């Protein structure tokens, strides 16, 4: 083979390469750099290999936070995805009602995250909060500040309230994109409402659902602000999620080595799970049989 060696065209790729290097690779490499060294000050540093990784993987507190994180993400996914599809199916499609519906559904998405935390912090309070006080008034004992179950419920409820609208809006747009002909054909084929959902709407929603599941998984797996404002991770450590542990380690205790190692593990977990979700959904789409 006589390949032309004078590939000057590669220089054209250089700007992109530099851009990506500065925006992603170099910052990530900084973290890698920290994760394999023990640094006392810029002139005193020791290469420690995988020691930090071993340490964080064996840290019981982090393991507990990781488990909590998974439980949390799976819980909110299993609520928000079906609920979002349901809301999208019920949203009005024509006229003024459609615009009004869209605005109402979109409102939670427009609120800054720590405001959401504050809203629920006050809303859920057992003494003065509308929600908390009302529950107590009708005889249901509720106090998210002292009861771990209640704290969990409140955090999940808050996330569902905050983010179901995103799933609903994605699905709404997906539903609008289905040509009227499909519904007409289904009527002529005497399809039931369920069959229309199962064989027309759901398959056509697959693409937006992939986006919905991935976005909601990533965001919920990285959740920080809202639970931090709402419960501060408590009571005890019961609502302390991974980001919070990481911040505590990196900024609170200034353990940069373990924090960097932990960050990398965190990043890899998100990447891995997203890949898994994506593969599973794509396979479901391809292998599904009527």
């Amino acid at each position, binding site marked *: 083979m006589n390949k032309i060696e004078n590939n000057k065209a590669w220089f054209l790729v250089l700007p992109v390469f530099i851009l990506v290097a500065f925006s992603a690779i170099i910052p990530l490499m900084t973290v890698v750099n920290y994760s394999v060294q023990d640094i006392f000050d810029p002139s005193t540093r020791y290469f420690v290999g995988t020691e930090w990784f071993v340490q964080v993987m064996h840290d019981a507190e982090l393991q507990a936070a990781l488990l909590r994180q998974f439980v949390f993400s799976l819980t909110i996914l299993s609520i928000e995805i079906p609920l979002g599809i349901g809301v999208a199916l019920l949203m009005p499609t024509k006229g003024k009602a459609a615009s009004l519906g869209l605005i109402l559904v979109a409102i939670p998405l427009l609120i800054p995250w720590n405001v959401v935390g504050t809203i629920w912090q006050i809303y859920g309070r057992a003494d003065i909060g509308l929600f908390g006080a009302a529950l107590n008034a009708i005889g249901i004992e509720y106090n998210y500040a002292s009861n771990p179950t209640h704290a969990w419920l409140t955090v999940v409820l808050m996330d569902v309230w905050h983010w179901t609208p995103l799933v609903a809006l994605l699905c709404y747009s997906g539903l609008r994109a289905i040509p009227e002909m499909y519904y007409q054909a289904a*009527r*002529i084929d005497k399809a039931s409402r369920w069959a229309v959902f199962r064989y027309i709407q759901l398959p056509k929603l697959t693409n937006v659902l992939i986006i919905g599941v991935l976005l909601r998984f990533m965001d919920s797996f990285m959740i920080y602000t809202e639970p931090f404002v709402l419960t501060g991770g408590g009571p005890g450590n019961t609502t302390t999620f991974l980001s919070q542990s990481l911040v505590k380690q990196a900024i609170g205790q200034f353990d940069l080595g373990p924090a960097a190692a932990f960050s990398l593990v965190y990043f890899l977990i998100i990447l891995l799970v997203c890949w898994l979700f994506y593969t599973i959904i794509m396979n479901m789409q391809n292998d599904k049989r*009527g």
Partner: protein
Amino acid sequence: MAQITLKALAHTYSANPVQGSDYAIREMNHVWEQGGAYALLGPSGCGKSTMLNIISGLLNPSNGEILFDNKRVNELKPEERNIAQVFQFPVIYDTMTVYDNLAFPLRNIKVPEHKIRSKVNEVAEILELTDQLKKKAKGLSADEKQKVSMGRGLVRDDVSAILFDEPLTVIDPQLKWKLRRKLKQIHEQFNITMVYVTHDQLEASTFADKIAVMYDGQIVQFGTPRELFEEPAHTFVGYFIGSPGMNYMDARFSDGKLFFGEHELPVSASFLNQLTQADNGRLQVGIRPEFVQIWNKQQDGTIEVRVDYCEDLGTYKILTFTLAGQTMKARLSEDQKVPSDKAYVSFPKQWTKVYRDDFLVGDAQ
């Protein structure tokens, strides 16, 4: 199996229609007989699809009745009317196999699985889909998908009619004729009423026994392809059917004769008898390019015209000429000599038609 009757049917999309043009379908009476293969031919926006959707029940007409075998079905929903409809773009259920797609309408009405199997296999056989049954419908080509949509109409025994809404639009030209032939074959085999909407005259005349030409919300003629060609009942039919369309000349009636400019036009007596001096409206005389006779020399009863140009289309030629300021066309056979500059034309009486306000004189309208 059913005869479909449209009684005083009209439809408008506007809330308070005032005039005729507010109607997508103007009041009409029409009968599609049981077992016929019909085409509904017309330009885009003439109300063809509206009419189809009214028959299938996807649309409720603003006026009039639809009868299936003399029973009123206005109030029945599409799923209760037992109609199959094939749309312009193939509608298939993506996640299902071809088999499941074909079985879908039967499963919806809870037919036992062994009956489904024999019926689906039978229909797949006819549509030449047997090899594809286990495949995902999603991966099929456009024409195969369209066959699957058609098949869903054929599996049901209770279907009274199949409606086609320009079903071959997305099909490759070389496959079109094949599918069309398949349709014809199915029609013969199932003895089922078929209404085929199209704007393609070739498609209409190869598929249908009778063609309804629709124009501006009404059926202006309903007849065999030959009738549409030889006796267009409306100027639109003359213009729309045939290639090129019919020649029309604005005519003047005086002293019991028809004139175009200063030329007298030869018209059969039966037409002339029906024209009255007083209120004739707009009169036009039409003749098909195929029937215009071209001569090189002056003959008895010929008119001298200016030759503009001649297109050679391989098996025939189209001659364009000007008569009294009006451009007209004539179709010549391949070996006929083309006069240059000047030619003499004559219009055979039997093929010269007279139209009053666009409708053929002597017709019911």
